[in-house]
């Protein structure tokens, strides 16, 4: 390396077909954004609605990924935060007639506080024990939403029906198109913030805690504080997704947020790739569409088909979709070098 630096040649930039990897990334991102922007104007409302849901799940998975992928803490209870976000939005809209856009920051704050407070005692728990504690949360929340103490607000088992918002400023969009664009805007903000977070000093601290907690604390990182904060931020993301989900579905009920939602988010996390931010998007698509695809094969065996698809995915992409992309691009880079 030293020799090269002193030589005339620049340090080699990873390239595929002559283009640097970063350019490829930016191009892919640009194409992705263009595709997302075009979707509402070329597709049927129903598909727009489905993709909206997939993006909402992707945001929730991103929240889980910050916790698990970057900070190494396991959670099987993120459906609870999703539920809290959803109910915050529904109660504000139905009970207080508050504009839906305001419910997102409110859901974010409520879920951050809730996640942070849950994170404090959970600090004493590691790995599987933490997974179990969060699992308890996922089981408890739907029941608690039904309890008579809060029934006045939550509507008990019947849930709350809310009104689907129309496009503002007289925009010529139907409510599905508008909600899609609204979700995309929120998603972009959330993804940019998430990306900045993991690339910052704080992000490095989170990753250091994941990789080697003792070394991290020796470096002066306040492990306890960072872990709790990560829990809070993770809950915040999932809560915002929950609020968006409530608005898109226009209905919340305890049965919407059972343990199977927590598992779905976890599946999306692993399939998309732990520790990858773009991977969460793939995870969202997987969570929404693969059960439907499985059902098309056979109604009776939908569960088995889903299992087989999941096994294949894990087998073919053991590090998730993001891992596969990374693998392919590094192969291509090596080929390029060998060729050149």
């Amino acid at each position, binding site marked *: 390396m030293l020799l090269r630096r002193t030589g005339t040649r620049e340090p080699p930039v990873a390239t595929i077909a002559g283009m640097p990897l970063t350019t490829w990334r930016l191009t892919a991102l640009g194409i992705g954004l263009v595709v997302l922007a075009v979707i509402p104007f070329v597709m*049927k*409302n*129903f*598909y727009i*609605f*489905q993709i909206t*849901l997939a993006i909402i799940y992707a945001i929730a998975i991103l929240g889980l990924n910050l916790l698990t992928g970057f900070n190494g803490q396991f959670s099987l209870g993120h459906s609870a935060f999703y539920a809290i976000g959803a109910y915050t939005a529904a109660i504000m809209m139905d009970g207080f007639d508050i504009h839906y856009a305001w419910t997102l920051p409110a859901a974010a704050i409520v879920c951050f506080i809730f996640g942070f407070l849950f994170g404090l005692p959970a600090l004493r728990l590691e790995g599987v024990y933490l997974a179990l504690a969060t699992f308890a949360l996922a089981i408890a929340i739907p*029941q608690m939403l*039904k*309890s*008579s103490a809060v*029934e006045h607000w939550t509507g*008990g*088992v*019947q*849930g709350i*029906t809310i*009104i689907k918002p129309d496009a503002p400023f007289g925009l010529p969009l139907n409510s599905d198109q508008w909600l899609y664009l609204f979700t995309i805007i929120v998603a972009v903000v959330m993804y940019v913030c998430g990306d900045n977070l993991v690339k910052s000093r704080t992000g490095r601290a989170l990753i250091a805690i994941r990789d080697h907690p003792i070394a991290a604390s020796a470096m002066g990182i306040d492990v306890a504080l960072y872990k709790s904060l990560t829990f809070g931020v993770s809950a915040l993301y999932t809560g915002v997704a929950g609020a968006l*989900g409530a608005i898109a*579905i*226009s*209905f*919340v*009920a*305890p*049965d*919407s947020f*059972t343990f*199977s*939602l927590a598992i779905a988010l976890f599946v999306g996390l692993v399939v998309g790739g732990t520790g990858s931010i773009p991977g969460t998007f793939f995870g969202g698509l997987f969570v*929404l569409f693969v*059960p439907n695809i499985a*059902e098309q094969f056979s*109604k*009776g065996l*939908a*569960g088995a088909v889903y299992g087989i698809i999941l096994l294949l995915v894990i087998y073919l992409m053991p590090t998730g979709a993001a891992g596969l992309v990374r693998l392919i691009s590094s192969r291509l880079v090596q080929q390029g070098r060998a060729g050149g």
Partner: protein
Amino acid sequence: MQLNKRMLLASIAGLAVVVAGPALAQKKYSPGASDTEIKLGNTNPYSGPASAYGLIGKTIDAYFKKVNAEGGINGRKINFISYDDAYSPPKTVEQVRKLVESDEVLFVFQPLGTPSNSAIHKYMNSKKVPQLFVATGATKWGDPKNFPWTMGWQPNYQSEGRIYAQYLIKNHPNAKIGILYQNDDYGKDYVKGMKDGLGEKAKTMIVSEQPYETSDPTVDSQIINLKASGADVLFNVTTPKFAAQAIKKAHEIGWQPIHLLNNVSNSVGSVLKPAGLDAAKGVLSTAYLKDPTDSTWDNDPGKKDWIAFMDKYFPDGDKTSSFTAYGYSVAQTVAQVLKQCGDDLTRENVMKQAASLKNVQLPMALPGVMLNTSATDFFPFKQMQMQKFNGERWELFGPVMSGDVGS
């Protein structure tokens, strides 16, 4: 000559149009219907916590196979599209939107579960697509004024409550009633039906009301309180687990009231057996469909047809389950509505015909328990018959009673 011939042809063609005109005009279609096919949509929990109910969807599917094998309805085949919603309301919304917007079905019927139906209630009504014969007993599904596109099917909880009230007023006018109920809309619907049915006498007859939460471990203390209140009638509005507990506890403490058990929990296998058949002896409840396990009906043509259908089109189906009898009956109701529609297969006419059922006797419904609807009455089943548990099975007794909520 040439010209004349042409004119002749033209006039014949014109005549043909005039003749065919009215016939063509009578055929009217909404999305999902055509000369050859009628597309119907449905969601059912084939997976997830409530997947036992998936049997209903499978039975409906089998029934339409039979209908199609026999030539369809008014010459049109039924294309029954049923998706899994796993009893999750967001999934129901997604699947129902797929049915309406992508598959373009004529209407959706029998979505299962109160939360699932609540989730699509507004959507269906704003899209003006019928949400027919929903599989839940809540009373809110019969509200033609505010939700003209939604209709229930099974007897609703309030109707059933009224039937028990009628029974008490007639047979035990001086009864002291103790009510055990689940503290949610389902439980409160039953209590309201009972109170409305008792009318003026409700205040004097009901001596104690004991609610419980689904999160409670047992209902033991409620039963003890009810006994202590001096009640000699127990109106037991509970879901299966709690129903079994209540029957058992009452027996244990030696309380022998007239025990009215709601229809929701009158399964012999999952409630009365766990409670103890001895303890359950003498319990009263209601029925509206024939119990497939009841040997009373062994020579009944309705049950024989049902057995033949099950053998031929759904051999894997459970013939001891009430769900298969239920699915068979609700599919027949839909077939009846479509028959009445004739060639006017618009969504408006589907609702109109669904609201014009007159004394329809389904083969698996109890004799005399008939379907009736009108423009202001969206509760197809309102009649039930009382039954008593003899320690082995239910025995029907007394007349068919009506618990009309509209009246």
